[in-house]
């Protein structure tokens, strides 16, 4: 432990974090999963779980980092290593850290991470899947497959509405609250909203995704094209996994942190 400390000059907070994962590992006796720690080399981590490519991209980390450790890369990019590790571990093993390991200072970084995720879903992933659906329809004889196009368009619209609500209402509220948390009284308009409202109405954006997967797996009869049908499914599985953790981070990391801020601002009295 002391050598890690020297090498990357991590704070006591970071140490606390490392301890959390070591402890957890002992307690849960996980054999199939590994905890990502700050002194791991980023290249090794990506090799071990390629899904993490999506995560580092959203933190603005580009590939080509040689043998640098996560701590080193975070320092270079001025990222909060705790936040990066929390998010990477959520994606790696679906394990969420206990409240004590999170701090409200993570909020601005977390929000920009989530926004980058939104941009990826709306501008890259969904359009790409839409194109695959077009190819699938072109390459199969079954006219019923055309229905998938409008179904998917409807789904993409739902996702887009969901995310723009977060970006226009929820995130600005959080950032305003965060900015005022240091400077005394929050302005009155902030008092009208509560993060629990968001959590309660945080809609499920995976329902139609699930439907689409079942339609392709079980219900459409065999089609001439198999390549695109499989490609669509692989992409949908991917998206489902990704969105699941995205929502998980919103509900189980973002919201509890905002609740802390609200309490501090005296909103719950």
């Amino acid at each position: 432990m002391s050598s890690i400390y020297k090498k990357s000059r991590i704070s006591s907070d970071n140490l606390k974090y490392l301890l959390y994962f070591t402890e957890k590992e002992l307690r849960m006796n996980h054999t199939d999963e590994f905890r990502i720690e700050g002194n791991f080399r980023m290249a090794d981590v990506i090799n071990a779980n390629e899904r993490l490519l999506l995560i580092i991209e959203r933190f603005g980390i580009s590939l080509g980092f040689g043998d640098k450790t996560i701590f080193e890369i975070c320092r270079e990019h001025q990222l909060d290593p705790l936040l990066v590790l929390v998010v990477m571990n959520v994606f790696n093993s679906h394990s969420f850290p206990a409240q004590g390991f999170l701090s409200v200072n993570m909020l601005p970084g977390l929000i920009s991470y989530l926004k980058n995720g939104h941009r990826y879903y709306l501008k890259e992933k969904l359009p790409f899947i839409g194109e695959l659906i077009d190819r699938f329809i072109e390459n199969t004889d079954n006219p019923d497959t055309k229905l998938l196009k409008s179904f998917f368009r409807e789904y993409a619209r739902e996702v887009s509405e969901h995310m723009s609500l977060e970006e226009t209402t929820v995130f600005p509220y959080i950032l305003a609250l965060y900015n005022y948390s240091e400077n005394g009284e929050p302005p009155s308009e902030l008092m009208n909203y509560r993060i629990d409202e968001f959590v309660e109405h945080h809609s499920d954006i995976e329902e139609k995704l699930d439907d689409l997967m079942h339609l392709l797996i079980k219900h459409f009869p065999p089609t001439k094209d198999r390549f695109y049908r499989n490609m669509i499914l692989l992409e949908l599985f991917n998206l489902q996994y990704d969105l699941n953790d995205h929502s998980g981070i919103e509900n189980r990391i973002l919201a509890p942190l905002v609740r802390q801020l609200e309490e501090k601002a005296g909103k719950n009295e």
Partner: protein
Amino acid sequence: MSKKKIYIVDQSEIIRRGIGAILRSRSYQYEIIDSIDSSDIQDCLRSQCPAILLVNPQGYVGNKGERLKALRQKAINFGFKLVAVVYAYFDEQVLSLFDDVIYINDDEAKIFSKLEKLTDPELSPFVPEETSPLSQRELDVIRLVALGHSNRDIAEELFISIHTVISHRKNITAKLGIKSASGLTIYAVINKLISSGDFDKTV
């Protein structure tokens, strides 16, 4: 209506009697049985199944989580809800195997709202029946959903209650893996329950 049984299992007498007292103070709808450890739960489960089992996860964390998983399985088999009573740190992964968690700081109102949520039949998660083929009634419901009818319309049209419609829809979702109305519409077209011309009208 018969009382709902709640079992409380915890090493601590303070906790057992404390929770028991809170539950009794406010509601007569619960029958409360407490026990110091889980060994006699086994027999209780066989003879009289509780609606809710409140346990301290501490007794179940060992053995790579196997004991907890076994308890979870039991909850599914016997159809009771599993609630953790927590006054020490537990991992999220441990707590995620419970239907809900009561924390030592929860007040009476919070505890009741959690328990009420769990015993409300409307809210109970649906247990899928086996993959039996769709019944004629379920096919009727799918067709009407696909044509854009609301649950209320469907109830009127088929002369059944809205609750029956909702339960048909739950069954349909469990059997087909399709939840949304537009997803069911596609299913209906593929299976010629409606024509694709009808589909154009609804979308």
